[in-house]
Structure formats: structure tokens, C-alpha cells
């Protein structure tokens, strides 16, 4: 059954804040083979004008995707998660995520459409810091393959 297009524009409550830690950024940076000191050394980060180490550009996905779970598992929307693949991903940055940030995500269903038996869902996650400033917007396109699709 195709997804209900009347859900476009539905916004979910903001998530509990996620506190970004220096060591979590370090772990992530090492996992992607990064050597740039701006991710691990506060002095290098300060020299570039940041108050503390910053996170690699895609770090925030772990936070925004967890928030998108509200949408993905919304029983009213009825997405079959077992058939979902990640189609594409985009970020628009107001500033880099940095250690000490407390980030809250507001997820919105940006679009819903059916194409060739597949359901295509775009979830936008607006990531705000504790002062309410927008830090990054994440757009995640998920494709739920049709039950009889190959």
C-alpha cells in the first residue's frame, strides 16, 4: 500500500538533547581514518577560530537518523522498515557541530511519493543547539522497495 501523501509536512516533537563529546568525535574521526587535528586537538580548533574541536561533516547523521526513527517507525505512516534502503543523504550547514553542543532534532516529512512500486520518503531533520540556533539541516531519502519488486 502506498504511503499516505497527506503526511507531507508532518513535524514530530524535538528530540531530547544529544550532548556532543570530544572523545566521541575522536572515535568517529579515527573510524574514518581522519588525521586533521581540528577534530581531536582543541588547540588546532582554536587556531581556526572554533571554541573546541569540531566534528567531521557527516558525524551528525548518527543524531539526525536516530531522530528520523520517529518517522520511520510511526505506525500511522506505515513504512515497512524491513524493505527500506538509504537512497540519498544531504546536509546544509550553518556551522560545524562542535564538542559541548547539546543538539536537538526536529524531524519533518518533506516529501512522500511512489515510483515504480517503491515508496520514497524524504525526512528533513533540523538540528538546533541549546540556544535554539540552527546548526545543520539533514535530508535523508529512504526507499521502501515494493513487496514484489526486484
Amino acid at each position, binding site marked *: 500500500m502506498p504511503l499516505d501523501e497527506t503526511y507531507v509536512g508532518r513535524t514530530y516533537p524535538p528530540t531530547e538533547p544529544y550532548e556532543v563529546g570530544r572523545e566521541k568525535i575522536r*572515535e*568517529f574521526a*579515527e*573510524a*574514518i*581514518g*581522519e588525521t*586533521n587535528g*581540528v*577534530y581531536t586537538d582543541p588547540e588546532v580548533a582554536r587556531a*581556526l*577560530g*572554533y571554541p573546541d574541536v*569540531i566534528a*567531521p*561533516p*557527516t558525524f551528525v*547523521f*548518527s543524531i539526525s537518523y*536516530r531522530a528520523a526513527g520517529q518517522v520511520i517507525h510511526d505506525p500511522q505512516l506505515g513504512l515497512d522498515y524491513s524493505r527500506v*534502503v*538509504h*537512497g*540519498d*543523504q*544531504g*546536509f*546544509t*550547514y550553518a*556551522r*560545524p557541530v562542535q564538542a559541548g553542543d547539546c543538539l536537538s532534532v526536529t524531524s519533518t516529512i518533506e516529501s512522500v511519493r511512489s515510483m515504480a512500486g517503491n515508496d520514497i520518503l524524504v525526512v528533513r531533520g533540523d538540528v538546533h543547539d541549546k540556544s535554539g540556533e540552527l546548526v545543520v539541516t539533514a*535530508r535523508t531519502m529512504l526507499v521502501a522497495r515494493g513487496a514484489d519488486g526486484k
Partner: protein
Amino acid sequence: MAAKISYDDIEVGTELPAQTFPVTRETLVRYAGASGDFNPIHWNEKFAKEVGLPDVIAHGMFTMAVAIRVVTDWVGDPGAVAEYGVRFTKPVVVPNDDKGALIEVSARVSAKLDDEARTVQIDLTAVSSDQKVLGRSRAVVRLG
């Protein structure tokens, strides 16, 4: 923000230094832990094959994370990246040996967007085993 590349020095067509990133099963286990994405298709061969994949595949977000390094290493300050988006077109298949797979990333300046904001658009290409693994892979970067 302190990009080490000057907008004035860049032309459409400027190539960024290409890089090749190795990925082994160990890389994927490490990335799973760091990212919190424990989907077994990224570490369990039996499970991956049961769902129709040729073998264990890399996290798409891992490929996205390494591809932008070609841009951030070039520009110096990762905070210069204003936008970044990719489409996941083919999986990076990672065999269970000490070599694993390679992700080859190249990039070129495809447009100078705004002389005031000093922003350029960069198109990225990521290839593994002769297959394009990312499509519509594009970043917008503020230069110095």
C-alpha cells in the same frame, strides 16, 4: 573559518588532489561502533548473502564520510563545507581478507557560485571495483 584556498585562484575545472581509501572488515566494525549503525549487512557475511547481497558491504555513510575528505583536506578547514549531498548508487563490497576494498575519490570544481560569499560547487566521483558507488555527489564550499 579559515579556508587555505583562495576563491580568486580557483577556476571551473580545477581538480582537487584525488585520494584512495582502503576499507577492510576491521574498518567496518570500527565504523559500526563509532556511528552506532550495527546493521548486520556491514559485518555478517551470512546475513548479507541471505538478503541478496554478494557479500558484506560498507556503510553508505562511511563512503560519504571518506569522500568529503578530498574536499576538507584540500580546503584545510572542514567548517568551510556549507553543503554536502550524495546518492548511494552501488554498494562497496568488502571481502573478508586483509586487502578488503578500495574507494577511489576524485573531485573537481564544477561552478563558482557566488563572488560575494566566495562559494564554489565541487563534484565528487567515488569508485570501487570499477563501479560508481556515489551519484550526484556534490559539495558547496566557502573559500578564503
